[in-house]
């Protein structure tokens, strides 16, 4: 067996605490990231693959991860994900538009901070109200975001249509960019935007994994599982919840900024509506609460399903046979059914399915 989980002696606590304790996992992951994601895909993929599949999946995955931090890891229900993405997108636009020395990664980071600040503000009621009652606060955030960018056109630089096209010449990616062979046009192409998205996504995954495997993550989960006990053993429930809201909405904010800049290429508050909040929530449920891998599996599935149906329809019945309404209703029914079935059969979502199938493969062919 090349891949074995048992029988590898862990010789130190540091080794046991690694992000991927298994040597095989480290090898495969590194190979995947370096050779596949940065190598083959960057080299070979088409414009369509970049901008209609990979970039949106990563962006939505980050948003899902953000919601998962609040809901999956800390147990705080939030229906305001798209609202916080909206804050992030508008923050990024205004930073880049109004400060010409601004760099994309910095702008996205600051956009995350601003969204995080909003997260703290709308998370404050969580200190007093619990459970379903908290929905009110997050929905208030959602509707407030939709309203404020509509009511105050300054945020949109008074664009009359309500939608700002994000002209690519707006952004610089890093200092001394002009000294590198990769020119502006490259960074504005789908390939360049893919690389930006990929790098940010990986950074955010690593950061999340780091938090989850340390005291921060344990405190979140303690508050999720039993906040009274957490309080008694000295965890500040208030601080932990606010911190979780901050980190969660930071991720959502960055996702919102990437959504506008790297994916759709315009800034439109109508896109960040309640439906999108729910879509992200579906991704969390389908992928698996409290799982980083699950966040991305969920995003890939929920986002990818309609595309798959359309493509299959095209392949079987010829191009353009399936109208969008059919595809939309079909995916609603399928995703809705999958959510219910998963909740009944495997509440851990795809992430748990992945783990059980690994377990089954390990004992194959002697398993049922």
């Amino acid at each position, binding site marked *: 067996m090349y891949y074995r989980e048992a029988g590898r002696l862990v010789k130190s606590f540091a080794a046991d605490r690694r992000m991927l304790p298994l040597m095989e996992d480290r090898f495969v992951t590194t190979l995947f990231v370096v050779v596949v994601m940065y190598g083959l895909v960057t080299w070979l993929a088409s414009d369509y693959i970049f901008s209609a599949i990979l970039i949106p999946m990563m962006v939505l995955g980050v948003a899902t991860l953000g919601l998962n931090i609040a809901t999956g890891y800390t147990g705080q229900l939030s229906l305001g994900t798209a609202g916080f993405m909206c804050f992030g997108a508008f923050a990024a636009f205004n930073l880049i538009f109004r400060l010409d020395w601004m760099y994309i990664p910095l702008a996205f980071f600051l956009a995350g901070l601003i969204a995080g600040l909003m997260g703290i503000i709308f998370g404050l009621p969580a200190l007093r109200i619990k459970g379903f009652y908290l929905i009110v606060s997050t929905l208030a955030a959602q509707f407030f975001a939709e*309203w404020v960018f509509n009511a105050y056109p300054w945020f949109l630089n008074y664009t009359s249509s309500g939608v700002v096209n994000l002209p690519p010449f707006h952004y610089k990616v890093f200092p001394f960019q002009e000294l590198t062979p990769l020119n502006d046009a490259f960074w504005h192409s789908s390939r360049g935007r893919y690389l930006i998205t990929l790098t940010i996504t990986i950074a955010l995954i690593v950061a999340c994994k780091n938090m989850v495997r340390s005291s921060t993550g344990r405190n979140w989960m303690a508050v999720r599982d039993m906040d009274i006990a957490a309080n008694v053993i000295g965890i500040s429930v208030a601080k932990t919840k606010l911190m979780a809201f901050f980190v969660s909405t930071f991720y959502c904010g960055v996702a919102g900024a990437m959504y506008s800049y790297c994916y759709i290429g315009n800034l439109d508050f109508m896109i960040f509506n309640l439906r999108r909040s729910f879509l992200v929530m579906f991704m969390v449920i389908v992928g698996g609460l409290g799982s980083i891998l699950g966040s991305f599996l969920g995003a890939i599935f929920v986002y990818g399903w309609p595309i798959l149906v359309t493509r299959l329809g095209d392949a079987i019945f010829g191009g353009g046979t399936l109208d969008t309404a059919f595809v939309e209703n079909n995916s*609603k029914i399928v995703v809705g059914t999958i*959510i219910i079935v998963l909740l009944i059969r495997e509440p851990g979502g795809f992430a748990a399915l992945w783990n059980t199938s690994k377990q089954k493969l390990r004992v194959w062919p002697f398993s049922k």
Partner: protein
Amino acid sequence: MWEGLPFFLEVLVGGLLSGVMYSLVAIGFVLIYKSSGVFNFAQGTMLLFAALTFVSMTERQVNFWVAFSITLVMMVIMGIIIERTVMRPLANQSLLSLFMATVGLNYFLEGLAQGVWDSAVHGVDLGISNDPIFLIEKFPILGLDIIISQFDIAAALIAGSMILGLTLFFQYTRTGLSLRAVSDDHMAAMAVGIPLSRIWAIVWAVTGVICLIAGLLWGDRVSVSFTLTAAVLKGLPVILIGGLTSIPGAIVGGLIIGASEKLGEIYLAEIFGGQGIEHWWAYTTALIFLMIRPTGIFGEKEIERV
């Protein structure tokens, strides 16, 4: 200030009347939450489903009452099916899982409703006049020169009598007694022989009926289309203000949200530099109430035991 009073009252009364409708939707929530701990997010779509079914029949020249009865039966069956296939297998799961299941159900029904029927905008006419009533002409004794929509009054009356009927039903019948027992303690209720699943089925069926009535009233006012699902968003702050487990809470909450929404629209929108504040204003109102009473006005305060 005092010249503004009649106008203020007009807005207030209008708000309260629409609040009765919110209360009706909210009671559907409360019934299900009370009996099974499920926060039924699919209610808005059930409402749309009912209205769409009804409209699709009347548009095909089916008699009003025939269409109404068929839809009624269908909603009851739908409620029972939901209970059987979704809620029962999930019994004893965490509240969060149950909630998420209804969110999934919501998505499923949305696709189904629009797939079976269509996503066009339909009109529904219940034959209630929409003419305004000048209160000073009808009731000069009150001395109030305000205008009230006749439709609002009719809708509020229908919704109000539904609410009254439901309250009486659950207060004075055997089923109602069982429901209250179940809401207090599932296990204990089962132990004394109350058929839990039957109670749940009844509750879901009743919710189906509520959805039909609310769907038609709402549909007449705004039209039957996808926007009807927003009803759930109107009902949400209502039950949260009232407390998830309280029928009186749903009524009071509905009135508060209805009034606050209309008053906010008139008096606060300008301060906030534009229209359209009603979406978040209802939630802000709810938030203010919850900050004072974290489990709603009539909600049960849980004493946490360790």
